Each structure stands twice: as C-alpha cells, then as structure tokens.
C-alpha cells in the first residue's frame, strides 16, 4: 500500500485511484464505499453517479484543468489532488491557492506527480497543500526538512503568516 505524507506524518494512504479499482461500477465488490479518487474527466462524464456513490470522493486535476469547474461539487468532495508532472510546471500552485482562498475548500489537498520533491514541498504547503505523494527517491526525512527550513515568508500561506502581517 502506498504511503503518503499527510500533515507531516507518513501514513498509509486510505484513498484509492479509480485506475486501481476495477469493479466500482459493478453491483458488488469490496471497494464500494471506500475512499476513491477519480479524474475530473470521469466526474464530468457522469456527475450524478459519482456524487451519489457511497463513501468519500476525491477528484484528481491535471495541470490544464480549470479548478473553478469543481466549485459546485466541493461540499461533496473530501479530497482534491493536483498534479505536478515535473520540474517547472507550476500550474498546480495556482490550483491549490484558488481552492483554498477563493473557493474555500477545507478538505484534503494533495500534491501528486513526479514534481513532488523536497525542494518544492514548502511552496506547495504554502499554497494550501496538506498531503503529498512523494516522488520516487524522496524520503520522509528530507521532505519533513522542507517544513522547518523557513520560519518566515513574505506572503501569507500556511504554516506561516506573512512577514507583512507580523510587522503590523
């Protein structure tokens, strides 16, 4: 089972991706009711079905997706995952920030993909991400360092208040 970094702890992932589950749409099966992450395209394709399914639901965004599309369904979603496909693609930062600030999403916000590495985790956390599927080769120890590296930041964003706020 996959491990993820969630709120600074390495835990077993209690979520499964649709691609890891084959009988979700069947009448029976053990995964019915389990916590499930589906791609946005699936949600789009059969919104009523997915929103009505029993159990926690999460959606995975790709970098090109408009995060605003999730707005009406956010109350039903316990998790949103945004993808950081590799070094340099920073669209997920904006998706996270919009979810947390403008859309008021309070569920789990997960960073996934090959770009989830120790040197970016602090930026991700400050955009509102609170769980991380670490890229291969990343260790818990190195990832945790990212949280303690800075005690100050110029912009607002958990876990720090901005320098400007501290000044006034």
């Amino acid at each position: 089972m996959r491990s993820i970094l969630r709120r600074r702890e390495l835990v077993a992932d209690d979520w499964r991706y649709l691609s890891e589950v084959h009988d979700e749409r069947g009448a029976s099966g053990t995964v019915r009711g389990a916590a499930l992450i589906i791609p946005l395209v699936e949600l789009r394709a059969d919104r009523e079905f997915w929103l009505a399914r029993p159990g926690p639901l999460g959606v995975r965004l790709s970098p090109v997706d408009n995060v605003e599309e999730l707005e009406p369904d956010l109350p039903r979603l316990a998790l949103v995952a945004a993808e950081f496909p590799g070094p340099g693609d920073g669209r997920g930062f904006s998706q996270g920030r919009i979810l947390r600030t403008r859309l008021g999403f309070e569920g789990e916000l997960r960073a996934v993909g090959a770009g989830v590495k120790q040197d970016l985790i602090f930026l991700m956390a400050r955009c509102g991400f609170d769980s991380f599927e670490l890229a291969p080769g990343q260790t818990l120890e190195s990832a945790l360092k990212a949280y303690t590296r800075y005690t100050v930041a110029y912009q607002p964003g958990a876990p720090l208040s901005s320098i400007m706020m501290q000044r006034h």
Partner: protein
Amino acid sequence: MYRYDELDQAFVDQRVAEFADQTRRFLAGELSEDEFRGLRLRNGLYIQRHAPMLRIAIPYGLLSTRQLRKLGEIAERFDRGYGHFTTRQNLQLNWPRLEQVPEILRELATVQMHSIQTSGNCVRNVTADHLAGIAPDELDDPRPYCEIVRQWATLNPEFTYLPRKFKIAITGSPADRAASEVHDIGLHMRRDAEGAIGFQVLVGGGLGRTPIIGRVIREFLPLPDLLSYLEAILRVYNRHGRRDNIHKARIKILVRSLGVERFREQVEAEWLASRASATRLSPAEVDRVRAHFTPPAYESLPNQDVSAGREPQFQAWYRYNTREHRVPGYRAVFISLKAHGHNPGDMTSAQMASVAALADRLSFGAVRVTHNQNLLLGDVRQSDLYALWGELRTLGLAMPNIGTLTDMIACPGLDFCSLANAGTLGVARQIQAQFNDLDYLYDLGDIEIKMSGCMNGCGHHHVGHIGILGVDKHGEEWYQITLGGSVNGFTALGEVIGPSVPQAEVAPTIERLVEVYRARREDGERFVDTLRRIGLQPFKERAYAIHSAAA
C-alpha cells in the same frame, strides 16, 4: 535606502542555508544535473562557457557603499577581481567556483544582498529609473513600490515556477528611463483627481526573439490594490501561458494570442473574484517602506555654474556625465563604465572600493546602477564636482561619453555566455576604436547603440537607435543591424536595414550610417529624429554602398 529588519534578514539567511544544502546535495550526487538546474537558476547561478556565472541582485539598482565594497571584495576573493553590471541593474561574476557559491551568498547576506530569482522562470529583479527620487520631472519616487513588489515576489509560493521569466519595471517619470514598455509588466506612477498614488498598468512588453511593446490594460490602479492586481495578472499567466515551447512562453505571447482586450477581461475577472482574499497593501506598510526612502539631508545651496572658466575636458565631462537634480546646488553624476578599450559594464574591485569611498564622502553613501550599464552618484554638491572629476579621472571612470555613441549597451556575448553566437565585446572594442575622437562623438550627439550576442536580446538591440544583433552563419559571426528603436518615453522597435554584415564590417557600416545623418540632419536634430523624418531608405542605400559582398 531600504534596510532589512530582522525578518528580512532571517529570510535571506534561511535562503542561503537552503541553497547551501542544495549545492551540497548536488556535489554529493544526490541531485541530478537536471534537478539541480531549476534550483540553481532560481538563485542566479548559470553554468556558462568557462565557469559558473553568478548574477547578484541589485534591487532597482540601488547600492549602499558598504554593499559596493562587499561586491568588490567578493570579486577579488572569489573571482578575477572584476564584475559586470547588466541591463537588469544586477552584477554578474564570471568566474566563481560552484562549491564556493554558498560562501559568496553568506558574504552577500552580511550586507543584506542575495542572488534570489536573478534567473529562472520566476519574477526577476524589479527595475526602476536610475534617477528615481532626484529627477526634476518625477511624479513620485518609484523605489518604495519596487521594494514592496520585490518582497511580494520573493519566493512567492504560487509564482516561482512560471512558464518563463518575468520582469517588472516601475517608473515615476514620463521620460521612462526604466524601459518599462519592454517589460512583462510596466507600472507607470500616476495620481488620481484627489492626488492619491496609483499606477497605469502595461502588460506583455518584451524583447528577445519576438519584440513587443507592452499594452495598457488599466489606466489607474489604486495603490492598495497593487499586489492583488499583480497576483491576478500572474495567476492568469501561470495558468494559461504556454509551457510547450520555450520561445512562446513569455506573457507577451499569451497577451498577443488572446488579444489585449480578452486578456484584460480575464485579469479583471480574476482580480474581482480573488480580491477579497488577496493581500491588500495597508497604509502602515506603505509608510513603513516609504520611510526608508526619505531624501538625504540636503544643504540649502544655490545653483551655480561650476564649469565656467574650467578646462574644456571638465566642461565636456560636466555636460555629458552630469544631470540636473531636483534640489538646487546638486547634480547627479554618471560614472562611465564605457571607457574605450574596456568591456562595457565591467568594473574592477579596486574601482568599486574607490567609488564607494567617493560616494561616502560626496554622495550620502549611496550608488546607483543604471540599465545602461553605468553607475551614478545621485546627490553630489555642485561645488564638489570639479574635485570629483579629478578623482574619477585617476580611476579611469571619467570618460565623458554618457549618451554618446560609445555609451553603448553590450551583453557579455561569446566570451562568456553559452547562448551567444557572437563576440559582442570584440565588436564593442572595434566601435570604440572607430569612434575614438571625442569631438566627433560630440558632433554626432545622442545616439544609442545596443548590442546583443544572440536572439535573446539581453543587450536590448531592438530598442537601440542603432541595434546590433550577432548571428551565426555556418560557424561565422555576422551582425544584423536595425535602425530606429528607442525607449525613454517613446518606445519603438528598430527595423532591420538589410543583410547582416561580417564582423570586420560592423564599425565601418555604422560609420556610413552616421555619415548619412551628418549629411541630412537639420538644426538640433538627433540621429533618430533625422531617421524618422527621412525614413530608412537613405540609410539602407549608404550602409551597403561599399561592402556589396554582404550576403
């Protein structure tokens, strides 16, 4: 000038520690070349032709003498005893050793300096008018707002991995000495009917492969909304800017493909939606930062004509290398880094130390870097000018050529940069040699030559009155010449005059171009005025009149 408080200092110290750790991991083999690249670039470190190149940030071109001395010390201790000032008002070291870079950064941090975001696809050094705070034509000093934007942009969690680099310039004067219209964002200070400060906002200017002049998307942005509006622009860009092609990734391409109207609508919609949760600039923060930029303790002095009766060399220097100051009795003084026979923008450690001493004595302990690659002492008493001139002469820093043809911009080119096609520094020497007669230079008057060694356009060739671009033709260096570009309040892009010329023909071709000007100019016309009046054709005809073999 801005002084760090303990929070600013803590941040920079922590950034140094982070980069030291990244460098250590790279040297230990824990990070691949590829992984390290994105990290080192965001800290100003390139791997260049001969060695790494470290670009040190000089926010809006302002240095304390303590900082300038430290730069000189660093260049002496870790490099070859000189540095290169750039069009972004930064300083580049061409020969540092990778494993020593963390130590250099620790040294910089002791004088409140760093190299954060001087390269990479993020918000770069915010630039400003080099006469900020002292120009008679200025509405207000832009530097406090540059500092506010600098802090907002520094390791901004949302905007540190943009599609491409992002440059912001702020100007408080209609003369726009910051080239703001060829920046990703240009902010022009304005006042509303009640006298409150705000900004006209331009977006999508830039040079490089696709030169474009920025377009106005908002006539007046109130100051408290400055950061929230920048956030809206950057967010639209971060989400929708192209990432599939490095040559089409700048915001100018997004603005052009959407059309400025649709781009503006998207920004305004984003701004309205996010404004409530975005950072609003409080009067307390504005006042705090502005307090760092209060004018120095000027004496009450009369204006005087200090050049009358002095030797002609001083008179020439006074005329070309000093500028009017808004305070009577003072002048702004350029320190020319364009002495003939030297690389434009280069300065030795010894010169840095000496200039720092002069600025301590004669200009309130501050030095400015101009985007034309010179330095400037902002606040010199007119009565001190003669003595200052004498001292600058002994330092080799009194070349009286500011604003003339040899006050040219040149990137480091093939001698240092791994992107370049052409040896711009060699061509600069050639031009300096061809135009070595000062009387001739003065007769030619205000001509701006800007030269880039490749399409990326670091030398701003598109906006030179005469632009020179190095191109590679089957392994040989050739040069494409453009005419009619300008910045400084009237931004225009130059037009290519025809086929490129071989290296040895650059200076002779420029000679022929200025001959056309001398023959056709009317009273008081600058080169670029004559060009605009009579058009490109006479110049084109003459440019190739001798060298017909150009292909």
